């Protein structure tokens, strides 16, 4: 898998690869759904920043979760074993006091 990614990254010009290599990722915060088509090796930071800019939120105040797991900016779809059509959930930062 790591080899694949490396391969993909390294061989961006491969013809067959783009169909396979691109993923459609849906990002939703219960109100809005944004679809991103990204490469498997693309850091999700790009996606997260784009979504925050579109929604007018700061990255620190939102949490991107994939199947309940926190998505770090450095994560890529490969590291998260994402598949096409997977969905990223956007949660508000969890804060509690009382």
């Amino acid at each position, binding site marked *: 898998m790591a080899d694949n990614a490396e391969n993909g990254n390294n061989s961006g010009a491969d013809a067959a690869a783009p169909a396979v290599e691109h993923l459609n990722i849906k990002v939703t915060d219960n109100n809005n759904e944004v679809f991103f088509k990204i490469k498997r090796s693309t850091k999700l930071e790009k996606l997260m920043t784009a979504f925050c800019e579109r929604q007018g939120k700061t990255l*620190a105040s939102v*949490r991107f*979760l*994939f*199947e*309940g*797991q*926190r998505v*770090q900016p*450095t994560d890529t779809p490969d590291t998260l074993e994402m598949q096409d059509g997977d969905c990223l959930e956007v*949660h508000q*930062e*969890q*804060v*509690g*006091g*009382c």
Partner: protein
Amino acid sequence: MVRLRFPRRARRRTTFDTLHNLGTPVSPSIPDETPIFREKRDQEGVKFARGLYVTIRNQHFMRNCSCPIPTIYTSRQEAVIVGTGHIRFFIADDDITKLSVIQQPADPNWHCARGDCQYWPVYEDLLSRPRFNENGKRAAESGELELISENINPKAVERVLPAAVDGSTPEPEPAPAPSSESPMESSWINPFALASQVLTTMAAPLTAPLTAVRDFFCGFFQGEARYDVVDTRKVDDANGTVSVKRLKRHCTPSTDAYSNELPGFSWADNATSYIGRGALDHIAEVLHARIDSIDRSKVTCSHSLEDLRRSFDPILGEDLDLNIAIHKLMTDTPSIGPVLPTDSTNRRETKYRDAQDLYLDGAFTAYELMQEIYTEHNLDRYKALFPKPPRTIAYEEYTKPEKHTRTLHEKARVAAEFIEWVLQHHMHGMEGFEEALSKVFVDANAIHKREIIPSYIKPTANESSPIPGSFPTGPDSPFEEVPINDLSVAYRWEYKFPSTDQPNIKHTPININEFRPILEPKGILKKPKEWPAPESPKYVATPEKKRRLDFVAPVASYAPPKEIPVQVMSLKDAINVHWHHPTETSNSVKDYENDASWNVGPATKNRHRFAKIDKGRSLTVSDVTRWTEKEVERDDAEMGLRVHEAKYGPFLGDLRREMLENFQASAQEQSKPEPDFNVRKQILQRIRHEKNQKTSQGPLGEKNSILDRFFRKADQEDIVATEGAASEASQHEHNILMEQASATSQVQQSATDDDLAIATKKLEDLEVSRQVAHEWEDGIRRDIEERHREAERLRKEVERKRREEKRRQEQENRRRREEAEQASRTGLRVPKRPLIGSLSNDWEKKVSSVLHANPSAELAKTIDGQPLTKRDFVDKLLEPGAWLNDNVIIGSISHIADAVNKSAGAKDTNPKCAAFSSYFWPRLESAGPSQCGRLMRKAHIRKENFFDIDTILIPICGGLHWTLAVVRPGKRTVAHLDSMRAGAGDVDVKERLLDWVRVTLEDKWVASEWSAIDYEAPRQTNGYDCGVFTITNALCLALGLNPKKSYTAGQLTLQRRRLAAVLLNGGFTKDFSLEGF
């Protein structure tokens, strides 16, 4: 040697001797006084009698008692013999400062029963000065008499100047204006009116000697010469004018008061030379003739002068002059008084008899005195005693009278009074002998005053000073006429008994009950001096109302008590006595009918009245021997009320009680024989013997055990006591106690009729002893019961304490058991050291430096790789009241799990403590347990190793509130810790947890094994610490500690800094190692 011719008849025994012979069997021996009385008197001396007297007087005064205060007798003899009353006062040694008192227990009369209401003016002066009237006013003194004017209708008094007596020319005096209305003249109205009244009743007013008041004073008169004067007044019935004659004599020259020498005088050769033998013989003859007339019953008892004159019969030898004289004496004497229309016949006769006795007494005493003093023998005696004539002589020391008769100076006073009265009334037969009579009077007065008799001395040749008491010669005639304005006089009788009818006064009827105004004296009298207010708190200023003043001296000083009962009165007699006329107590005087020495005639039926004793009453008071002024003042101030009453009041009461008890005791003594003590003793022995027999016969009951002990003790003491006679009384007491066991009937049997009284007394004693024994027994029983109760109480107390201890221990055990159960159930323990310790200085600095960090800089990174910035540290953790975010929660809990796993040496894939992120719970809720595979894989929780995991920590953020879900597979428990509920959790959360466990375990799931429990944890009391609670609870449960025992809510501010330090440190390592908890 000159011999006076005295009638033989007059030499018989005096009335006093007669009285003594016939008198009551009163023993003159020293009276038997009670010890308390004698002791107190001996202790206090003179003060005692005086205090007692003042107390009695004040008691009478305060009680407003009608009975008189005690009489003061002149001597002890008199007090013992003729005195009455339980307590009798007398003058000791003729010294008036020595007032003494004796007690007569035999006399049942208390002092209240004393009959005589008068006492000596000197003592009045001594004891009761100032004396007050009933209305609190003091009596007028002699010098104040001129203030007394009670008539406002003056009548002109024309001055007449008849031929001078003895041919001497009177002093030319300016005649007062006839129409003068001076108050002084007005004061004459009453006497004058009375005189006029008397005049009209007299048929033959040849010479009308009417009113005469002796005014005895010593003052300057006619320049330098000093005289004692006697005023004599006459009313001319023809024109109603009054003439006043003044008899003068030389007064004693004032020399050194302490020297008894009389300078300028020597003894006279003859006692009769000064007066003259012839004159003395004549006077004695006249006096004897009068006495003889009375003895021969030549006196008629008449009710009025008119009646007297009408019934006068010269054939019977009646002496009209004598009758008139006696009648006038009756009128003049205050204690007798004139015959009033209201008087009964019996009373009139009594008055007349009294006057007759008085006349006889006076005449006889004067006769006797003359017989005594005008003898050469008497003069020679004094010549022998005194080489030079002394100033004063205590005559009574040298003239020992017969027993119980009057002393010389007493006789002299009576005689002087009588002669004075004769002088005033010009006794028939004495015409031309006034001067001689006056000289006798002066001699008698001198004796009474204890001065040298003027007849006994004569001036030495080279001395020109006159003899004291002698009459002036030459131009200084002894008689002179004086204007009435010069006289400060008042009619004695009128002041005492004012007349109700005032014929001469028309426009101002006089009410005797009314007080009359005091007018300012005017005319030739000098202005009266200001009288100082009496020194008494009771004095009240004279109100502006009509009043009249009474006076006491010197006129009153010559009104001595006339009657002293000679017989000891019984109480019954005392009740019947009419005090104002004591002579009605006929029983008190012995009848003289049997006295053969008396010439018994028809009129002598009543002569026993003569037996009244009139002792000399007015002693001369020497200024030296008076009570000191200070003493009198002090007594005046308190009136003797407080001191004397406090001191002697109870004493008097005791005396009275003692007297009564003595009488009762003496009365009982006669009626009741005293019981024989020997008989009583025998009875006691017999009773005791019987008791002993009974004791030996059989044992007494248990009830008498105490008494037996008592008796044994008594017996022992008895043996000892028999040795001493003094213990006889105690022996009797023991006997009484011993007889207690024997029946009362035995005592009754043994008591014979003779000893009935003793037996009764015995029974009472037995009864008392039995009561004592019973009380003793009861006391012991009560004591034992008391002790039992005390012991019972103590026992209960111990029992109660034991029960309490037991209960407490049980509670403790139960608590421990429950704790043990709880601990075994939860598997939690108490930390060995404090969970939240303070940070070191280095870590404090590091934590504080976070505040100044770059906001975008990555300060730390969690295990998950999540970077932590300043925002997370400061805004979400360190700021006071900051709410924790998911980064801090998840980072901390993951550090906890990591530290526990590392300490346990567990591999990452097979952890002992697993921690989920806070997003596990939302995923579980939304997607269900089956969709959490990724998260469970990440947490390394699988079906296979599920039971190897000790603790699974699941932070939950719901509704802005952090809680912690804990699954402990080893214990098969799930729990939910909510800091707001002090550790308890939500049921739904637990159910969801169990559901998740069930799904996870699949076929390993045994429902019966699993349970949802609650842990104890500190309660959150604020609105911002729930995240810290969650992390700390997670730490405790991961370590297996009881959260409640591990930390408190107050430590969580520090915990925030510790968490920051742990995050900066990158886990619970080094300084934050979890080892040792």
